[in-house]
């Protein structure tokens, strides 16, 4: 059934596509805004890579200058994980080209599950960071107390942020599944 075959749909379509006074072009973002948003995403990714590179360089310098192997190892593991997370986030930043709404939903659900796994890994990394910090504090040449306290506070703040993100992503997953059920309810013959 095409809209032109049904007078009721045809009448609705005429109202739907009538020029709208509110549709004066003011709401359409400019191409410059679109490009700026794309550049911002790229800048965030590059900044994350730069931070990981700087952390890796600092660890390498410490290793070369005789730092204890355990803190260096845990620091390297933490940096590697952060780098992988940044690369993963960059690769999954846009699902707009999925071939169908069903695929887009599946992609969104998959990304949300990945975020939840990443958050779970984040909890483990925070625990590892606290262990790493404890190891450094117990080391023969511990960091200054203020630095250790700041690092611990940073890890605790990260744990809080992860907990908030965890709640948000669980809610999003629930919504996506509800949408999926709504769009593809049982009884419909879908492809």
């Amino acid at each position, binding site marked *: *059934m*095409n*809209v032109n075959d049904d007078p*009721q*749909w045809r009448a*609705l*379509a005429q*109202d*739907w*596509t*009538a*020029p*709208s*006074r*509110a*549709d004066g*072009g003011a*709401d*359409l*973002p400019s*191409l410059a*805004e*679109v*490009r700026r*948003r*794309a550049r911002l995403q790229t800048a965030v990714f590059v900044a994350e890579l730069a931070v990981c590179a700087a952390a890796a360089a600092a660890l390498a310098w410490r290793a070369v200058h005789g730092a204890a192997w355990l803190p260096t190892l845990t620091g390297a593991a933490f940096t590697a994980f952060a780098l992988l997370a940044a690369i993963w986030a960059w690769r999954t930043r*846009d*699902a*707009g*080209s*999925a*071939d*169908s*709404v*069903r*695929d*887009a*939903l599946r992609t*969104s659900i998959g990304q949300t599950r990945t975020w939840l796994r990443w958050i779970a890994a984040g909890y483990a990394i925070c625990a590892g960071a606290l262990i790493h910090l404890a190891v450094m504090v117990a080391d023969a040449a511990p960091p200054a107390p203020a630095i250790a306290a700041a690092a611990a506070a940073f890890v605790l703040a990260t744990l809080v942020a992860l907990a908030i993100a965890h709640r948000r992503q669980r*809610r*999003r997953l629930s*919504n*996506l599944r509800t*949408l999926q059920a*709504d*769009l*593809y*309810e049982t009884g*419909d*013959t*879908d*492809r």
Partner: protein
Amino acid sequence: MGRDPDFERVLAEHRPMLMRIVASHEADPERRRDLLQDILLALWRALPGYRGDGELRAFLARVAHNRCVSHVARAVAEPATAALHDQLAQAADGIEAAERQQRQERLLAAVRRLPLGLRQPVVLTLEGFGPKDIADILGLNPNTVSIRLTRAKAALRSALMGEPSDERE
């Protein structure tokens, strides 16, 4: 850059359709603008990959609907109903235009109240897509599209005539 003039031309030609798809999924003006930006960014990235297989309108509608689904999922609840403007006070070209504007706003509000599974084929039908194109865009069986459109038409008729409907989110 050769891509930008093409992108601008495509936007200019299909802007009304994109605006209506966005409006059917989001009532709040600020969030509508964010959603539109999301869609335009997705289109800007996806257009170079358009190989000419199928109508460009259908390709744009598919990307737009995909982003709208993600947006609705992020929004958690059903779209908030924004206050409608007083079109009668602003009519510049007579009573007929004001009445048409009012019918359009009522239709848009009724479409937004439909469950997402009915809303999407309705929006595409109103944009002039046929059942086969709608099935391709939404990844559905054409029979399913027909069934949903029948239910949606009944729900819209009830909503526009002020009768209670069974099709609510």
